[in-house]
């Protein structure tokens, strides 16, 4: 008996006991919720299971990277929605980062005008709810002229309330090879950059990295393209009936969502960048000036590498926010994952399954982004030797 009391008094044993209780408690609650849902659904005669994914969807989707028709399955429809979510998130992450860095640096500018302007931008965009901003951008997009009175920005590129219509290349076998050459060129460029860094570190002499890398990216695809007889034909948009036919289009919904997400997130990123730069002691800048480096060099070679260590972790959560915020697309008609899944859930009535799938997909996307950013964070983190 006294042994038992003794064991219970040991911090280690008690710790284990609490953890075991907590884990089993959590599992019990989870199990209860799932089984309760299932029994009640079947008690009320509501169909369950994922069999509906293989049935014909029967609804159209406004824009799609894959060829999709109403006769495809619910699963395919959801994949189309997922790709739309990924597209807008990926492009918006790039745009928001660029805009955010520019604004963040601008806010620290010694030029009064530039600094004030950046401050006003940041305070406006991050203090107005995103949904409102999206609606504003979408309303602006819809105020553009109708297709029949479309603005011809440059020849064969039309801007109307149906979006931006532009010509595309007519596909040709030569394009595929040129694309392959481009990928090989990019690989080559990466190798050049690596060699250049090594060369500089070992010999201390400069190496013409930039021109060589550029040449590696540009020359091979151009050579292949010309070599295959420069197949060059355009699919030009032409006004036919209600809308333009031919060419490709960026829809107002996509544009509004892209601008809205990028601008909103850029406001937060700008503040993160600013705090990162301010975290680097001013002495570093002075040291750089004393060495005779230009302000641009100081920013690129001294400040940013150190600031990144502060910037990357909060930046990750902004990227995650942006991706999840893209689900506000339903409000302005961009067919993202949530929009398509909502429709599927409604037509089949299997709301629990559909919502569970959506949650799982967002979780996976977020974990992937977080995983990548953590890897990047470890790379830029201070290496102590």
């Amino acid at each position, binding site marked *: 008996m006294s042994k038992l009391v003794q064991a219970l008094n040991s911090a280690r044993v008690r710790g284990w006991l*609490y953890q075991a*209780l*907590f884990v089993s*408690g*959590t599992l*019990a*609650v989870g199990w*209860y919720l799932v089984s*309760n849902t299932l029994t*009640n*659904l079947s*008690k*009320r*005669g*509501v*169909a369950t299971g994922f069999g509906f994914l293989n049935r014909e969807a*029967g*609804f*159209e*989707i*406004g*824009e799609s990277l894959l060829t999709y028709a*109403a*006769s495809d399955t619910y699963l395919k429809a959801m994949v189309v929605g997922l790709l739309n979510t990924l597209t807008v998130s990926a492009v918006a992450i790039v745009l928001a980062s660029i805009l955010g860095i520019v604004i963040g640096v601008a806010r620290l500018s010694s030029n009064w005008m530039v600094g004030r302007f950046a401050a006003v931008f940041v305070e406006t965009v991050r203090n107005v709810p995103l949904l409102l901003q999206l*609606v504003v951008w*979408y*309303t602006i*997009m*819809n*105020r553009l002229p*109708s297709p029949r009175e479309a603005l011809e920005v440059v020849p064969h590129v039309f801007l109307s*309330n*149906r979006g931006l219509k532009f010509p595309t290349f007519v596909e040709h076998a030569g394009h595929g090879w040129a694309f392959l050459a481009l990928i090989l060129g990019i690989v080559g460029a990466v190798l050049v950059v690596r060699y250049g860094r090594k060369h500089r570190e070992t010999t201390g002499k400069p190496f013409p990295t930039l021109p060589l890398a550029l040449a590696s990216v540009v020359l091979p695809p151009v050579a292949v393209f010309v070599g295959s007889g420069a197949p060059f034909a355009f699919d030009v948009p032409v006004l*036919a*009936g*209600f*809308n333009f*036919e031919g060419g490709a289009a960026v829809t*107002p*919904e996509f544009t509004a969502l892209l601008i809205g997400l990028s601008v909103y997130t850029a406001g937060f990123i700008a503040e993160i960048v600013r705090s990162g730069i301010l975290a680097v002691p001013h002495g570093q800048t002075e040291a750089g000036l004393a060495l005779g480096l230009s302000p641009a060099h100081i920013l690129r070679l001294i400040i940013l590498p150190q600031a990144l260590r502060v910037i990357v972790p909060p930046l990750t959560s902004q990227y995650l926010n942006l991706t999840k915020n893209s689900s506000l697309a*339903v*409000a*302005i*008609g961009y*067919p993202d994952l949530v*929009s398509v899944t*909502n*429709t599927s*859930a*409604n*037509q*089949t*009535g299997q*709301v629990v399954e559909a919502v569970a799938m959506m949650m799982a997909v967002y979780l996976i996307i977020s974990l992937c982004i977080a995983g990548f950013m953590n890897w990047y964070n470890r790379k830029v983190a201070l290496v102590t030797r």
Partner: protein
Amino acid sequence: MISKLQAAALAAVVTLPLALTGTAQAGATFDGVKQKGYVQCGVNLGLYGFSAPDDKGKWTGLDVDVCRAVAAAMFGDSEKVKYTPLSAQQRLPALQSGEIDLLARNTTRTLSRDTANGLNFAPTNYYDGQGFMVSAKLGLKSAKQLNGATVCVLPGTTTEQNVADFFRANKMNFKPVVIEKNEELHKAFFSGRCDALTSDASQLAAIRAAETQNPNDYLILPELISKEPLSPAIRQGDDEWANLVTWAFFAMVQAEEKGITSENVDASMTSPDPDVKRLLGVTAGNGKALGVEENWAYTIIKQVGNYAQSFERNVGAGSKLKMPRGQNALYTEGGLMYAPPLK
């Protein structure tokens, strides 16, 4: 030592599942409603003519009148209703989960909702069909001229599937713009983002009446591309409740057929017509069979009115919608409204 906080947390974790198991399922809906003293009715967030709060915040509309009729039959008071405004997506789960007792929210009766979704439907209270509204400037005469059009659609209904079916059947193409919020969807249509707006014809008329300065600038094309029998719904598994909802509505239709209105219902109590006597409870029997007072139908007619009164007040000549009776006229006048004998 276990601190008090830790002990409390432990106790919560252990007892929570036990506490939850207690709340598995309530009794039958009919008894539940009777006990609560009011009907929890799921309605539209705001669809003019069907269910929308008026300028005093009181819910009115054709669907709302179904809720009121059921409350009148059950409690002798048509005001004993609590309204739950629901989006298209929320409505079925709200009914399935028992959050509401009755769903009167312009819901189309379909086979899959009747079966896989575990619902039962009361008689159709409005026969509708999906149509297209276009700008009159386009000069269109028929929905078959819509090839290549961009169409604004509200999600969460059978609407998206119907429009895809129509275009597929006629070998035409279209681009949908699917927006969840009504206001944004209508703005997109009226600003010209879409060539056509599709929805149930009654809703198109409601939108046109409420949101345009000159309703004649917009045209509702003649084709109705679907059958939309809008019907109140209840959960499966309570036949008593289903009976009451069904016959509360039929009583309104029967009253119209017999020419009994909220104004002349008191005078009709002395009518020699045996059908009227049974309807108004002068001859007893119907009330007992349904489990309510014998004057249940009298109360409905007195407080809510007959079907014609409800129709004209909410969507017909007495409203901004000015919808014709059409399919919703009595069978004696070429419509589909037909009440089986109340005996």
